[in-house]
């Protein structure tokens, strides 16, 4: 028998039909939808006069458009409200479960899947959202799809897919002080660029990954897409099983969990399985990271310097590099440490889970935010919010002068009321620093929750290790 990667194993189990020259028909175990990328898909069903194929496998939530204040009131923005209302209407009409704004399970789609036990090892998971890769942390094939594909899955619980190439990224060693999983992924993307993973599905392995908690693993898989990969996954282990066993609403329990575990334990790449590409990284080389430019590959060590033109390997990158620095109003060769900030955003599907909030709270406890900087803390879900309050983290944030709000995508993307004003600098725990991503003209520095916490206290780009 030929040796298989974990990715191959899961993929092969889900192929309904394979035909030469055609993409595989791939069965989807879990389909998440949200208000932005689903309305046109439901319109498609309507036009064809067909129902949702298997309503039990699709779950909806509202996250991108929602305000993070006064969530009990109707949404003020007419278009946002219409989009959220359309989702409600479609879910009702087609019999799809919806966790809307008033539901105790509402939250960012990639936060609620795992926390509710809906994301499990061995699954195929899709959502009309690129950061679906997050769910790969459980040893699932999870990837973002377009709206036409959302329609395919609604209509047939399947989609047409060519099998991507497989890449292994192995990271070994122990992380240094103040270095988080966010730094690992920002480091890797800075090394291989925002297109370095194009065409691949990544499996992360190695002792560094094995030592990470599930939530930290999710942060890594979340940003797989920022190197251009279709997704990223991590083989399940005891840490995965323990996470799932923590009273997750929809996860198997008792005997069923034991049975499932027996299967999940088989979800490993075979020794000697072949990948189309293999990369190795050493945890020792990884420091707290920050991006200076307008794609996530433009990252440096937080105490490093912005590259100069002569540092760039490829001359073709010069013009986009220059444009990028112009947009950011930064100079080549300069350091970012000490750069004054206007906003700190702690949130998004990358870093708004309870562990992230705990880390931040732990750091800021008894401290106050700097004058002149606005600090937004947006829990990833209603459950995260509830837990934070239960643990008293809310008090710590409020005492520090942070603005703790309700769950949603918030300032991760300029689609709801939370935006960074033009020309302002924001250090953000989210995943994208594209021009205008946090609002027209907004300037984003991507970093870890700890780096964001340190920045909140000093009002400047800071090296969290200086406080340790």
């Amino acid at each position: 028998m030929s040796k298989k990667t974990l990715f191959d194993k899961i993929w092969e189990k889900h192929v309904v039909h394979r035909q030469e020259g055609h993409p595989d028909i791939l069965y989807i175990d879990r389909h998440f939808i949200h208000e932005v990328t689903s309305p046109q898909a439901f319109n498609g069903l309507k036009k064809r006069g067909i129902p949702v194929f298997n309503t039990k496998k699709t779950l909806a939530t509202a996250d991108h458009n929602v305000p993070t204040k006064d969530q009990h009131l109707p949404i003020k923005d007419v278009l946002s409200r219409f989009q959220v209302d359309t989702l409600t209407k479609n879910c009702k009409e087609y019999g799809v479960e919806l966790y809307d704004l008033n539901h105790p399970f509402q939250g960012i789609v990639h936060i609620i899947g795992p926390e509710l036990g809906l994301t499990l090892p061995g699954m195929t998971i899709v959502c009309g959202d690129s950061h679906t890769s997050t769910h790969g942390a459980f040893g699932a094939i999870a990837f973002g799809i377009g709206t036409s594909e959302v329609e395919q899955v609604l209509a047939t619980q399947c989609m047409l897919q060519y099998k991507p190439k497989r890449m292994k990224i192995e990271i070994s060693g122990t992380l240094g002080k103040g270095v988080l999983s966010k730094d690992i992924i920002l480091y890797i993307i800075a090394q291989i660029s925002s297109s370095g993973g194009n065409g691949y599905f990544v499996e992360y392995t190695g002792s560094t990954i094995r030592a990470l908690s599930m939530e930290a693993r999710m942060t890594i898989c979340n940003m797989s897409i920022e190197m251009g990969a279709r997704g990223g996954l991590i083989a399940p282990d005891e840490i995965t099983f323990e996470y799932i066993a923590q009273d997750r609403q929809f996860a198997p329990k008792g005997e069923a969990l034991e049975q499932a575990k027996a299967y999940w334990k088989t979800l490993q790449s075979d020794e000697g399985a072949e990948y189309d590409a293999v990369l190795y990284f050493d945890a020792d080389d990884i420091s707290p990271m920050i991006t200076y430019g307008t794609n996530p590959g433009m990252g440096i060590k937080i105490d490093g310097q912005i590259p100069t033109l002569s540092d760039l390997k490829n001359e073709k990158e010069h013009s986009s590099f220059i444009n990028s620095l112009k947009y950011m109003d930064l100079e080549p060769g300069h350091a970012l440490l000490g750069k004054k900030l206007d906003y700190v955003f702690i949130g998004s599907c990358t870093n708004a889970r309870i562990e992230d909030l705990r880390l931040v709270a732990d750091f800021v406890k008894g401290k106050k935010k700097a004058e002149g900087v606005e600090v937004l803390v947006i829990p990833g879900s209603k459950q995260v919010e509830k837990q934070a309050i239960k643990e008293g983290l809310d008090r710590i944030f409020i005492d520090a002068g942070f603005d703790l709000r309700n769950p949603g995508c918030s300032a991760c993307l300029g689609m709801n009321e939370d935006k960074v004003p033009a020309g302002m600098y924001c250090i953000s725990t989210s995943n994208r620093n594209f021009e205008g991503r946090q609002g027209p003209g907004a300037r984003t520095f991507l970093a870890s929750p700890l780096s964001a916490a340190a920045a909140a206290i000093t009002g400047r780009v800071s090296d969290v290790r200086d406080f340790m």
Partner: protein
Amino acid sequence: MSDKKFTTLVSTCVPLPIENIDTDQIIPARFLKATTREGFGENLFRDWRYDSQGKEKPDFVLNDGQHQGEILVAGKNFGCGSSREHAAWAIRDHGFRVVISSFFADIFKNNALNNFLLPVQVSEYFLEKIWVQVKADAQVKITVNLESQTVSLPDGSSDGFDINTYKKACLLHGYDDIDYLLSMKEKIRDFEDQDKSGYLSTGKMATAN
């Protein structure tokens, strides 16, 4: 999006020699609030096309009055970033039928093909050639032939491009993935019933409702 069938296109082009054009530039998130597929063309490259007052920026290529056509030619790694299909809709809605680049982001490529927008990936060398010729003459006509999978310039130079046979057939005949998938419905039902995925046996108890 009228004409779904694609065979050959001869057209002038709009050159956008910028690398890593991400989907947030193609269509900024704040314009994603529509619930239909139409109308996104108005906001294509919104923040490059218009200033904050909504006035056209005269030096942007879509506003300069010189460049028009059904072919968009862009720098490497076009369409990176979010999975929003709105990016493909916006480009198609604006009237483009082909995007030429030396590299496309994966999801964008899929989305484009699903919307009868043809992504044509050429060599860096050929892309360079297009830039030069368009710069010399904005009216230069590019020919894209799907049947032979070639793109050519009036001086006779040409380059080939890849497209998988399935998608090629879809475009040539104007049918889409859902038509194909729906024709396989029985097979899908059987698969579900047989519990083949191995996951499903544990997955049933994990459904949401």
